């Protein structure tokens, strides 16, 4: 069934790709680029670009989202040529953080950035980026943090399982900047010298917008139209769409768009259910996807999905994006005080993963994922239910989890009776 006789223009075997994963610059094996070609089905032979690696599964070129934990859940990273949509959490606390991680990763890897926002000036956003944790400083700082990644005392020799002592220790900490995916310290700002070397383009809506005199040709909101034209201009200037074939060094363009769909962009999807420009946001996403597919860029868009009144638009926006991740923070909700969730700051939902050049996608086994933010680490872990140790503890926590909607009237007294809790 799977055509064993595929010619060289198509997919290679997984074995050969795996060899290229570790050191993408050291092997002579080069994967064909994914979609930087065009209608001919092939693509230019890509020399390895800094900050990218080919996917083990289908040879797709991947970039890091800035969060190694999220990279793992997305199947290794964000594929070049796709759009990652982040559904913002209710009070917009953690989604700007993911946005900043994405941009900071771009600076550390040397990619070009395009930052678009209607609320803050892009220069201000870049000043606020977290500092990366690089090689030399990580050893002592990471141990201070008190994470339990500490390796066991190496002076203690293993007596029975002595063979295991010879195995290399698992490296779970921050890594050097030539690797894929970095860790960031949210309490420190990015050093100025890194920022100065970075190449970035900013789009701040209040500066670009001019009062529209005529109706837009494609009936998009004025802000969206201007942003699309800007992105197209930068894509062709930077040559990421293959328009300058003589340019030897290729680079990735990282596009970050903040709070798309909010009223600040001039879109009333969040204000009214039946809005006039009900197709503006979806048309924008479609054309954005076309632009990103045809070039070596990766795009991250944050959308306040909980504000959009018309649920049909939310569904369409989800299906128009490639990867969709939803954030749900516990701040201000009942779960903040729930003992079940005390270690975590919120839940993360991977709603959609694209199937690129493949029939299946890399879905992880686990659907219940929670995240927690420490100073130097944003971890995403599987949500475990604690074991039932005693009657009262388990009944309390089970009652809280079983109730889906918050009930303001319930006090502590209602916990013992209340729900019909089957107890065997």
């Amino acid at each position, binding site marked *: 069934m799977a*055509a064993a006789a595929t010619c060289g223009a198509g997919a290679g075997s997984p074995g050969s790709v795996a060899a290229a994963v570790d050191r993408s610059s050291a092997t002579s094996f080069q994967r064909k680029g994914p979609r930087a070609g065009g209608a001919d089905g092939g693509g230019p032979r890509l020399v390895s670009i800094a900050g990218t690696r080919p996917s083990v599964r289908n040879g797709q070129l991947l970039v890091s989202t800035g969060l190694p934990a999220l990279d793992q859940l997305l199947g290794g990273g964000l594929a070049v040529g796709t759009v990652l949509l982040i559904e913002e959490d209710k009070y917009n606390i953690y989604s700007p953080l993911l946005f900043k991680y994405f941009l900071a990763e771009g600076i550390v890897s040397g990619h070009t950035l395009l930052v678009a926002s209607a609320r803050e000036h892009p220069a201000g956003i870049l000043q606020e980026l977290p500092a990366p944790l690089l090689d030399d400083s990580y050893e002592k700082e990471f141990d201070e943090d008190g994470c339990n990644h500490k390796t066991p005392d190496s002076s203690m020799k293993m007596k029975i399982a002595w063979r295991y002592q010879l195995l290399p220790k698992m490296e779970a900490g921050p890594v050097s900047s030539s690797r894929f995916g970095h860790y960031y310290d949210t309490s420190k700002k990015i050093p100025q010298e890194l920022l100065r070397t970075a190449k970035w383009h900013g789009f701040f809506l209040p500066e670009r917008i001019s009062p529209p005199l005529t109706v837009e040709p494609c009936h998009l909101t004025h802000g969206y139209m201007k942003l699309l034209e800007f992105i197209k201009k930068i894509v062709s200037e930077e040559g990421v769409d293959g328009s300058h074939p003589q340019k030897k060094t290729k680079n990735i363009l990282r596009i970050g768009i903040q709070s798309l769909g909010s009223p600040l962009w001039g879109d009333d999807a969040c204000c009214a259910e039946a809005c006039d420009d009900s197709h503006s946001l979806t048309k924008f996403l479609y054309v954005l996807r*076309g632009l990103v597919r045809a070039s070596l860029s990766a795009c991250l868009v944050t959308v306040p999905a909980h504000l959009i009144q018309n649920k049909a638009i939310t569904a369409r926006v989800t299906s128009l994006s490639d990867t969709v991740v939803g954030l749900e923070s516990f701040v201000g909700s009942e779960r903040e005080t729930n003992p079940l969730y005390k270690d975590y700051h919120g839940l993360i939902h991977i709603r959609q993963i694209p199937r690129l050049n493949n029939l299946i996608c890399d879905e992880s086994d686990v659907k219940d994922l929670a995240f927690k933010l420490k100073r130097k680490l944003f971890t995403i872990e599987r949500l475990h239910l604690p074991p039932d140790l005693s009657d009262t503890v388990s009944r309390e926590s089970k009652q809280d989890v079983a109730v889906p909607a918050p009930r303001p009237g319930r006090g502590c007294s209602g916990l013992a009776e209340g729900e019909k809790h089957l107890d065997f």
Partner: protein
Amino acid sequence: MFPELNNLLNITPDKVEQGKLTLLCDAKTDGSFLVHHFLSFFLKAKCKVCFVALVQSFSHYNIVGQKLGVSLTTAWERGQLVFLEALKTSLDIFFQTPAGPHPLQFLREASARNLQPLYAFVQEALKPEDGGEATWRHPVLLVDDLSVLLSLGVRAVAVLDFIHYCRATVCTELKGNLVALVHDSGDAADEENDLLVSGLSHQSHLILRAEGLATGFCKDVHGQASPSRVIGVRAACVHSHMWIQNTGLADSTQVHRKKAKGNTQKYCHGFSLGDFSFILLGYFAFMFL
């Protein structure tokens, strides 16, 4: 293409039914594997294919097609495949005014009244060759997918009209086939989409639904696919197809599917031999008819 799906539908590349509208419907899962199946199936059956690809790029279909045994590049060069890569051509029409009529003209309009230019494109692509002798068998139109047209400002009625026109031309006049994919969200959130799905279900001869499992997420089994054959409502077409959907004897055969890297295995709900159950149900239905 997947031989299990071919067995279930009782078709082979040599023996293809003509004049049919097949609707591919997916709910809570991704039904694009069905599109890949039909694309490779019809290319192997030496039919002339017009593929309107609205959501993915050419290279994506090409790479998956190679896993399934067809080369889209070769088919395109030979003239067997006419490919409209909307993601790329939309950029041309979006940023500058087109010179003449363009199949994706609806992108420039606020709320497109009809998809006339797209229909003209399809008609042009699939018209029979002059010269008498035909290199390819009957024409096929594949659309992936129709729900995205609603996101781009086209009304559901316009999409239904477009399919009706295409069916009249491709299925009835040219005796070809039409295969289209829609997303079915199930809940009543998207009314336009529900309108589109029910309108299309009414018109189609064969509906293939790919659904997520009712019990939730399972790593190995990706979902279930159920084909339902529908007897044509017009009195003139009395086929020997079994009316499996509405007899109440057997609901549409539920088939669980598991997708491996390059193929899809189908195994019947509760049985290990897929064909056995299908034949058995068909036998009972035939007895009672």
